[in-house]
């Protein structure tokens, strides 16, 4: 599998660190109930098919990337920088 980093271009999978589902971008607000934190940290949709997850371009530009890909075929559909994605969701 290769990922096309928006900044560095197409790179080998080994350059990237995998974190997990993009649920990590939906951090509960301060003071949210414990159940919200549990859901955020542990529970996952875990789809067999299209998913979106977070990768870190460790051996490249050092940016966090949100990758849209298929967990069954390993087709990569889109790679976006996380910073603007997170901002669109109203977080700085």
């Amino acid at each position, binding site marked *: *599998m290769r990922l096309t980093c928006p900044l560095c271009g197409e790179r*080998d*999978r*080994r350059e990237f660190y*995998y*974190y*997990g*589902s993009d649920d990590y971008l939906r951090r509960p607000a301060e003071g949210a109930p*414990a*159940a919200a934190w*549990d*859901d955020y*940290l*542990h*529970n*996952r*949709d*875990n*789809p*067999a098919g299209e*998913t979106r*997850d977070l*990768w870190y371009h460790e051996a490249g530009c050092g940016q966090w990337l949100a990758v849209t890909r298929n*967990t*069954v*075929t*390993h087709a990569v559909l889109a790679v976006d920088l996380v910073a603007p994605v997170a901002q669109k969701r109203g977080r700085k």
Partner: protein
Amino acid sequence: MRYSGFKVFTEGLFGNKGWKPAWRDPAPKAEYDAIIIGGGGHGLSTAYYLAKNHGLTNIAVLEKGYLGGGNVGRNTTIVRANYFLPGNSEFYSHSLKLWEGLEADLNYNVMHSQRGLINLFHSDGQRDAFARRGNAMVNQGDDAELLDRDGVRALLPYLDFEQTRFPIYGGLLHRRGGTARHDAVAWGYARGADQRGVDLIQNCEVTGIDVENGRVTGVQTTRGAIRAKKVGIVVAGRSSQVAAMAGLRLPIESHILQAFVTEGLKPVIDHVISFGMGHFYISQSDKGGLVFGGDLDFYASYAARGNLPMVEHVMEAGMTLMPMIGRAKVLRSWGGIMDMSPDGSPVIDRTGIDGLYIDCGWNYGGFKAVPASGWCMAHLMATDQPHEVARRFTLNRFATGDLLDEEGTGSQHNLH
């Protein structure tokens, strides 16, 4: 039909014409007392112990493919009881004891071989951690011996002790650890369950779970609707999909773990060796193939085949540890879909829906757990109470902070 040496002998004399299929191939009934979704090791052992220990025989195992086609037939077959944390320790101890009586109990040769497992260590700090683990194992009533470098050398003279990156300081020897024939475990439990009246229904995929007023009432399948007041979800890597049919969102992420086997060689590796620092472990099958594996591919996947970077990594680790295997030819590699939990430990619990139970989160350690998982899941489904040795495997422990994080790596599914 009872299997025995005498039976093999007489069948041999008369052209092997008397063997019968090991289980029936029944059509699903309209209703059962209990349904188990998933015909892997854990589903089959659950059915067996429901029938044997609890007298529940009007039950069915529904398998979407063929029995044993999932992880139970894809793993590297290590059986051990070397866990550290209370909660895990007593469970795996119970499982190993069941393994030790399994062949007699099932009247089936599962080729359980207690050839000894050696976990290597490579620093003073790691030795202390292993000594502590060994003490925990002994306190649990299991066996452990701390070997120094010479002790390891006496058993495994062919390792590269002086490799520059991870020189070998010693190892933790667990003599009762070993391997078993994975398919035979599935077949043995299947045959045992069938003989007690359990319907094993293959090519029957569950597509929906029926819930009315907070109670489970049955399932929808590719072979029609089947009613049942009790349903157990035991589907390993597919847990999230099946649980979602009942509206549940699980603390599970599915990942691929690969394994490899070489051409058959003369006996050379007499133990199971685990080289944690290199993410590598190896044993030799009775057919002579070297069976080995490493770590997860690291990203969520349902592909049931592995990626090449991990192939390279595993081969490198093997060459670091035992350069002698370098000329063996790898015959096959494959992958299995692992149900990774956020603390690396499993779940055997109720679900919040009456009559619906779940057994999942086995990560890459669920083969050794097959007997005890079935034992405890059967207990839970029959009595509605958790079994004593599985009482910590709750679904809500992530919410309460009661984690069982054996490796101490934190709440990230792929780090266990």
